[in-house]
């Protein structure tokens, strides 16, 4: 049970990352391969605040959110002027630059990292794995709710307009540049919030845990589930996050299986498992449509039958 819960916490952390990454990659269509680094920024600041300044876990959550958000704002303002592939590679570069900062700046504990991060406590009780899962799920629910809310706002619609056609979006009055930066900032801030959970959950943060590969995995999860949809983001994190554990029994071929499943998905179902236009979604749509039509027929038929 406890083991499943720990796997669950990992999965939930990934899900927060994918849902938040979806804001910039899914809604705005801007490639971002630095989500792992923003997780790292949040985790590092949470670790510093709790070990060096003995701040409560609850206080580190907004602080991690804010610091990662500020980093996202600055880095986004610099890099979002670039388009598509230039941007993709620049965000890959951000991983290396941010990891170098962790490694070289003594504030972040240098190469040794920061360890002995205390367990958070609530009402005097130290966190159990269940508590981590609870807080993680609440964070996930929050990020999902914000994403869903955004989808229904003018802001959200403008983001999707930017994704569809930047020039046309700007011609109807969307402030393209600043909206991109806002979305990037929001996405980074949520990743930072996940970091505030990551740090005490792992009890230690080290520079090399937050590199390029972590960022690739998060983006791969999002694409696997279905870019642009919250359900896809969550499902991708759940499946790919749990996969390495499911494949423990073939330990030597685990990473290979992971790669193979990802590749098969990209090759045969690039819309993702439950993204718009994926086979699964089309089938469900058709089925519900059919169901509704039948029910509709039923309701119109029945009075006639009664007469």
């Amino acid at each position, binding site marked *: 049970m406890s083991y499943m819960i720990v796997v669950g916490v990992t999965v939930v952390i990934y899900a927060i990352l994918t849902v938040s990454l979806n804001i910039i*990659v899914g809604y705005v269509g801007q*490639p971002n391969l630095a989500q792992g680094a923003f997780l790292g920024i949040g985790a590092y600041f949470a670790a510093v605040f709790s070990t060096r300044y003995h701040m409560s876990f609850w206080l580190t959550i907004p602080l991690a959110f804010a610091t990662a958000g500020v980093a996202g704002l600055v880095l986004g303002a*610099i*890099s979002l*002027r*670039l*388009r*598509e*592939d*230039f941007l*993709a*590679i*620049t965000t*890959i*570069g*951000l991983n*290396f*630059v941010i*990891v*170098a900062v962790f*490694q*070289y700046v003594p504030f972040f504990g240098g190469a040794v990292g920061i360890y002995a991060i205390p367990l958070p406590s609530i009402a005097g009780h130290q966190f159990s794995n269940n508590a981590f899962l609870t807080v993680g799920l609440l964070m996930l629910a929050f990020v999902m709710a914000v994403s869903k809310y955004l989808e229904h706002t003018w802001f959200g619609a403008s983001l999707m307009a930017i994704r569809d056609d930047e020039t046309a979006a700007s011609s109807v009055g969307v402030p393209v540049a600043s909206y991109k930066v806002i979305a990037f900032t929001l996405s980074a801030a949520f990743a930072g919030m996940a970091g505030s959970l990551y740090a005490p959950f792992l009890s230690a943060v080290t520079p090399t845990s937050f590199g*390029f*590969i972590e960022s*690739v995995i998060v*983006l*791969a999860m999002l*694409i696997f589930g279905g*870019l642009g949809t919250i359900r896809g983001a969550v499902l991708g994190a759940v499946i790919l996050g749990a996969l390495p554990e499911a494949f423990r029994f073939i330990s*030597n*071929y685990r*990473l*290979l299986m992971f*790669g*193979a499943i*990802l*590749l098969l998905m*990209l*090759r045969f179902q*690039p819309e993702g498992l439950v993204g718009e236009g994926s086979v699964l979604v089309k089938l469900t749509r058709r089925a519900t449509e059919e169901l509704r039509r039948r029910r509709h027929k039923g309701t119109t038929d029945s009075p006639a039958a009664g007469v």
Partner: protein
Amino acid sequence: MVLSSLINGIVLGSLYALIALGPTLIYGILRILDIANVAGLTLGAYTGLKVFEATHSLLAALVVAMLASAAFGYLLQRFLYRPILGRGPLIPLIAGIGVFIAMEEVFRLVFGPYPLDFPATVPLPTVHVGGAVVTGVQLLILIVGIAVLVGTWYSLRRTRLGLLWRATSQDTETASAMGVNTGLVIATIFLIGYALAAISGVLLGINYNTVYPTMGDIPAYKMLAIIVLGGLGNPLGTILAAMLIGLVETFVVAYLGFVLPRDAIAFIVLIVILLVRPQGLLPGESFGS
């Protein structure tokens, strides 16, 4: 000191140029950042090593390695990249990274986790140039590098394939409407791009006397920085960027020490230059025009 740094920087730059040239040609034609190309590099290094161990011929090692990698590249474009081309830039990018990671695992399972040494001696002398030393391997890298670069320039500028590459890279649809067999052009570019990767792999293996499953990690990231810096899809820009990164790295280390990780140096150079020139050093896809 200056001279030897200059030589080291140019040798390193040539290696980077060799590594990045294949992906540049592929980007030019398909607009795909082909990270899997670096799996071709490692495949070339392992194949070259195994053939060398069997035959003790460097030439045979190179030729077989090129064939093996080229075949790998052909299969990749045929069965992975081309079917997902219309899906925007992100999906092929992630697919390429997926191939790259999966292949590292394949190499580990097939050849073992331990590094293997590549004990080839290069039949070239060590040259002394005014106090600086150029080893035989470095000389080989320079010679092969120059030969490949000149060869690429010639093929792109003066041959029918070059014309087709330029036409297809500028506008695939128009080219295909004008009767260019774009499928064939793409396949050929992959064959060439992966054969180049194999050459880089063998040279890397010999130069550093080591071949291991994850030997492509650092070249992969650096290659990305270089081809973007070079203007994405511009072979001449790639060569310039490779030289720039090679020289900056070498001089930074020689005069300031290991102040920063080399990967970070490459990407900081990239970010700074992109801030000034968002289109890279040389924009466009043409070769030197």
